[in-house]
């Protein structure tokens, strides 16, 4: 009846390096439904981040199609592409690098509102305060510089900026990997709350199967630019079929805790 939110088919990106052509992304196809989380896992160099950049049109593919919200996303250009970007957002791994070093919180959150004409200049401070509250931060933070706030707060700001334009899909590129574990849980919970309340779909890129099993519905495991296996996240992590899937599961550190009373 309805087409998926995002349908990627035969996406390919090649790089030339030292006279050789290497396919960083080699004919990849996948789809994401509304309010769903698809995880992309795989070792470094498997093409995870390249896929993120291709989806966001930060780099252009050599072949393939991207259909987003029922339209051909790759045919958009200029103003039409910029307008469409409101619906497809991204959160980067390093929250410090993802912001202009001179920016304040208010400017970072005000930019998308201004660029997409969502809020007038007069209305903006109120909308910024609402966004800050939405991601669990105090509205007083608006006047602070980005470099003055903590890493966890910065990643909340990055999420607030991504949801400012009411997107239907947010690409999270290792978005919790640089965070302390105690902060990581809160950010994951925030992402889940936003997904439930605003029906946002996530493409969750991570090398950490533990985090993926906590947040993702489905998983695709990449190896050398191809999807080695994909399916229900729980099922794949419990019983991986591909060699790379097995290696990833085996390599993940396991914390075996016996319950309190049977330890001496």
């Amino acid at each position, binding site marked *: 009846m309805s087409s998926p939110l995002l349908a990627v088919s035969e996406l390919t990106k090649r790089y030339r390096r030292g006279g050789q052509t290497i396919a960083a992304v080699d004919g990849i196809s996948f789809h994401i439904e509304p309010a769903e989380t698809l995880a992309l896992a795989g070792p470094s160099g498997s093409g995870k981040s390249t896929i993120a950049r291709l989806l966001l049109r930060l780099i252009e593919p050599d072949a393939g199609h991207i259909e987003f919200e029922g339209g051909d996303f790759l045919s958009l250009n200029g103003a039409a592409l910029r307008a469409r970007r*409101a619906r497809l957002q991204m959160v980067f791994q390093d929250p410090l690098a993802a912001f202009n070093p001179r920016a304040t919180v208010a400017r970072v959150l005000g930019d*998308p509102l201004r*660029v997409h004409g969502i809020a007038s200049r007069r209305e903006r401070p109120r909308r910024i305060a609402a966004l800050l509250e939405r991601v669990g931060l105090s509205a007083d933070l608006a006047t602070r510089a980005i470099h003055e706030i903590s890493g966890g707060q910065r990643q909340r700001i990055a999420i607030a900026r991504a949801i400012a334009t009411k997107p239907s899909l947010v690409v999270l590129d290792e978005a919790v990997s640089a965070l302390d574990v105690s902060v990581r849980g809160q950010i994951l919970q925030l992402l889940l709350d936003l997904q439930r309340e605003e029906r946002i779909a996530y493409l969750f890129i991570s090398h950490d199967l533990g985090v993926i099993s906590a947040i993702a519905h489905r998983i695709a495991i990449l190896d050398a630019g191809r999807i080695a296996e994909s399916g229900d996240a729980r099922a794949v992590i419990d019983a991986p079929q591909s060699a790379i899937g097995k290696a990833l599961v085996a390599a993940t550190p396991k914390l075996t805790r016996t319950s309190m009373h049977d330890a001496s």
Partner: protein
Amino acid sequence: MNPLRRFLGTPEAVAGAIILIALFAMALTAPLIFPGDPQAIAGPALLPPFQDWLLPLGTDRLGRDVTAELFHGARTSLAVGLAAAAAALVIGAVVGTLAGFAGGLVDEVLMRVTDAFQTVPSFLLALAFVSIVGPSLGVVVAAIALGAWTGPARVARAEVLSIRERDFVASARVIGMHPLEIAFREVLPNALPPVLALSSVIVAAAILTEAALSFLGLGDPNRVTWGGMIAEGRAVLRTAPFLSIVPGIALVLTVLGVYLAGEGVVETTAVRRSLS
């Protein structure tokens, strides 16, 4: 520690700042201390310095007050130096940012134009420009800027090339910001520090170029300039060398002051960078 205190902690920076403050004071107070036309005759011709308290630095061939000329000349030197450097930095930063950010054909064209300007000696360029358009303050400023913008353009481009690969530029694209806004609001401000580090060199060079143009008679004829004063004194160099030496010393001190203060600023910001 605040940047001002750190700046004042370096002796050369303090020396440079003192010279520049004195110079600005001279330029600003010139119309108050020496009202009227500094080129008017004020006393007997060729009066040596330190003879008359009212004419402490003596008079020139026509009996004009050297002190008044020196003060008014500071106005011209500073105005031309700062305006030309500002123009060169603005042109250079804009050209460099566009070239580095746009890449491709735009980059290629802009950088070949930069090459073309850089291959012609900048003084020759200024000389030719003023000879064709005719000497006036604005033309002199433009002529000097014409030869000085290429350095800032190259530095800005190199900086922009590395900044445009950073995540915050990607995230500006992701939120749908217009490329020109990204270039000038996100990228350019972050590319400026190394470009501004060139400013002391450019200001000093601009002041010297202005003096040289005036020396050759291509300065604004309605204004007193140090270069013009040196040229004036040349005819009587044997009998009244002070006429060339006094503005010469002023020129040397000014350039020295600009360099020292500029060096101090660079040092201060460098320390702050290494701390953060």
